[in-house]
């Protein structure tokens, strides 16, 4: 920006402040640089990383153009600043990601980092973010441990952690009065699968105290073949089979389980299953209870209400560009970037329209709440650093007319019904019978 335009921008800012304008008008710098880290290769790329960035790209393009989204997101870029993205592949493990993070902050000099699907990366990066005082948003990973075991000043997670997914499933079963005598689980043998199963069994112990666990299977991540596990589930005949599998593991399990009629013997519930619907379509059996880790994908599209315009605008743009409807991952990227936009503009409103510093951004983000296609996001936990959000569970139903899989009987859960209150660890909250839950 040359000196003339700087003076012009300064004059405009002064004019806006003098006129009591609510929002910032112009920034000193004209670009806000974001480092976006997500899986562009590896097993999580197809399910989460690539669709998340596809969604991010659609949103960033629309924001940079300006006026494409309904208010309050109709202002160009972030507070008038053009958004520039440095995209980094999350593949390679936590050690590599710590190095990539340092590169982004110290060499690329990004203004904020938005990233991380892997819980391992989400646990490794925050200490470095605080050390470098770099404003960082964890947009996807599910482990509750990030903020339940630590505190960070510059790190925020804009998506609810995984406890919500499994508590919602158990509540869905209860509210539909599904009789459960026994249940079993097939989950991937790493932190995500183990934690999901622990949350689900904990929630079931509260809501279905008489239901017994028949078997808990943990095939290794990427196993692909589940013939023996399906035999075990068929033999045990549990009323319900729970799985938090995702990606190729989930697709393989659904294909093989359906071919052997497991869904006809047991009610199958999938805590994060929506993202395989576009690929499986009719191969996903009807009657599966399924979550999307938030009011995401089909559940958001079917919700209606005041957020519908925002949801439909992004949904249509995504579908037009990529030929497939958006599932959970783009929704989490959208809520992260819209949260960042809200925080940047809030900080600019408070600092006279300048590009905010990391400290100003962190102060603006702390305890913030904003609307996203997935609902109202509130940074309500971990002293304002961890989001809670509403959730939804639905039942799969093939629509022969449209030739598409749909969700029916969708139940929407308020954020405070399925997330623990501030200051309470998830496992304790479940074990104590969800004290403070607001489910009306």
């Amino acid at each position, binding site marked *: 920006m040359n000196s003339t335009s700087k003076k012009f921008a300064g004059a405009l800012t002064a004019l806006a402040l003098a006129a009591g304008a609510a929002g910032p008008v112009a920034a000193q710098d004209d670009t806000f640089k974001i480092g976006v880290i997500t899986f562009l290769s590896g097993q999580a790329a197809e399910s989460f990383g690539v669709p998340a960035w596809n969604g991010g790209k659609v949103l960033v393009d629309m924001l940079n153009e300006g006026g494409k989204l309904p208010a309050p997101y109709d202002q160009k870029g972030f507070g008038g600043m053009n958004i520039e993205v440095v995209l980094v592949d999350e593949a390679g493990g936590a050690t590599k990601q710590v190095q990539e993070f340092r590169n982004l902050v110290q060499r690329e000099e990004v203004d904020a980092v938005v990233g991380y699907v892997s819980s391992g990366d989400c646990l490794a990066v925050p200490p470095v973010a605080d050390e470098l005082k770099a404003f960082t948003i964890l947009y996807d990973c599910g482990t509750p441990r990030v903020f339940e075991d630590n505190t960070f000043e510059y790190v925020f997670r804009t998506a609810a952690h995984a406890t919500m997914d499994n508590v919602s499933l158990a509540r869905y079963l209860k509210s539909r009065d599904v009789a459960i005598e026994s249940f079993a689980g097939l989950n991937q043998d790493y932190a995500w699968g183990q934690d999901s199963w622990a949350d689900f069994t904990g929630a079931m112990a509260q809501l279905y105290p008489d239901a017994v666990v028949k078997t*808990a299977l943990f095939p*290794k991540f990427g196993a692909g073949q589940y013939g023996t596990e399906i035999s075990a589930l068929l033999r045990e005949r549990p009323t319900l089979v729970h799985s938090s599998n995702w*990606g*190729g593991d989930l*697709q393989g399990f659904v294909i093989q389980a359906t071919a052997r009629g497991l869904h006809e013997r047991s009610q199958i519930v999938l805590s994060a299953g929506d993202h395989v619907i576009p690929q499986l379509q009719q191969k996903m059996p009807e009657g599966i209870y399924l979550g999307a880790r938030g009011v995401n994908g089909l559940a958001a599209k079917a919700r209606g209400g005041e957020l519908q315009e925002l949801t439909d605008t992004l949904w249509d743009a995504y579908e037009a560009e990529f030929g497939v409807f958006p599932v959970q991952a783009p929704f989490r990227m959208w809520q992260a970037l819209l949260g960042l936009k809200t925080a940047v503009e809030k900080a600019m409103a408070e600092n006279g329209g300048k590009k905010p510093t990391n400290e100003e951004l962190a102060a603006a983000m702390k305890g913030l709440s904003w609307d996203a296609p997935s609902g109202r996001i509130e940074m309500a936990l971990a002293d304002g650093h961890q989001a809670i959000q509403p959730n939804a569970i639905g039942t799969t139903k093939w629509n022969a007319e449209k030739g598409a899989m749909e969700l029916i009987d969708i139940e929407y859960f308020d954020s405070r019904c399925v997330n623990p209150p501030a200051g309470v660890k998830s496992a304790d909250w479940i074990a104590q019978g969800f004290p403070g839950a607001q489910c009306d």
Partner: protein
Amino acid sequence: MDLAATILVDGLIYAGWLFIVSVGLTLVFGVLNILNIAHGSLYAIGAYAAASMVGAYFAWGGDAFPYGSYVAMIVAALLVALVLGPLLERGLLRFFYGRDEVLNVLVTYAVFLILEDVMKLIWGVNPYFVYEPYTLLGDVEMGPLFYVGYDFAVIAAAIIVGLAVWLSLNRTRMGKVVLAVIHDSEMSQTMGVNVQRIYLGAFMAGAFLAALGGALTAPMISVTPGLGVNVIIVAFAVVIIGGLGSIPGAAIGALMVGISRAASVHMLPEAELFIIYFVMAIVLLFRPEGLFAKTQARKI
């Protein structure tokens, strides 16, 4: 159907698949003395090629005769072997014959990493599906359980592959030449055997078996990047149990791993992974060279 029978059936199904995947690995080691890490990539490329081929088959009117998709899967595996076999063996591996075995492992590991990216360049990161062949053969009811007919077709394929490899090696002139090369390649060469051609043929056969394993697996799964990683680890366990380079060893190793894993899933699911390597450790404790490998005098 009682528990023992269920374990046996599940174990046999898994062992059938494991054998197809492992036999090519042990064959290549037996002839070329190379522990081919890229075997996992060839498996994955076989799965991708089969998915593409079967998809094209149905797109071009294959619905009229869906069983033709099985031919498409085999053709896909053949194509992989015909293209990648000579490319890797003539283009790279032959320059490392006689070199340190560890160096060969590193070379094939490099090939594995390169092929992982090549797959992404060709097929992208989105999954490929070919369910049709998986459900074409109907269900098999065994007591209270249903199995997919395709699972038993994989067992049949494993038996056919095993017999074909064994008969080729032991009942044909070419097989005897290959065995001669395995025993002493220098002596075979002095006797007029074209050893280079044998190496190429053996590597192509190994590549075909790897790709066939992938092609047969494709209908059961979503074919996604990273498919070959897990396979190569468990295939190594099988061939080490049976003895590197031994075809019957691969069969016995696959059976031991398949049945012990099935028993674990049914009775002690926490030990599913542990049991495979526990069996391997026990075998190596008593037979460090594997069950069927011949003990060799060590040159000092």
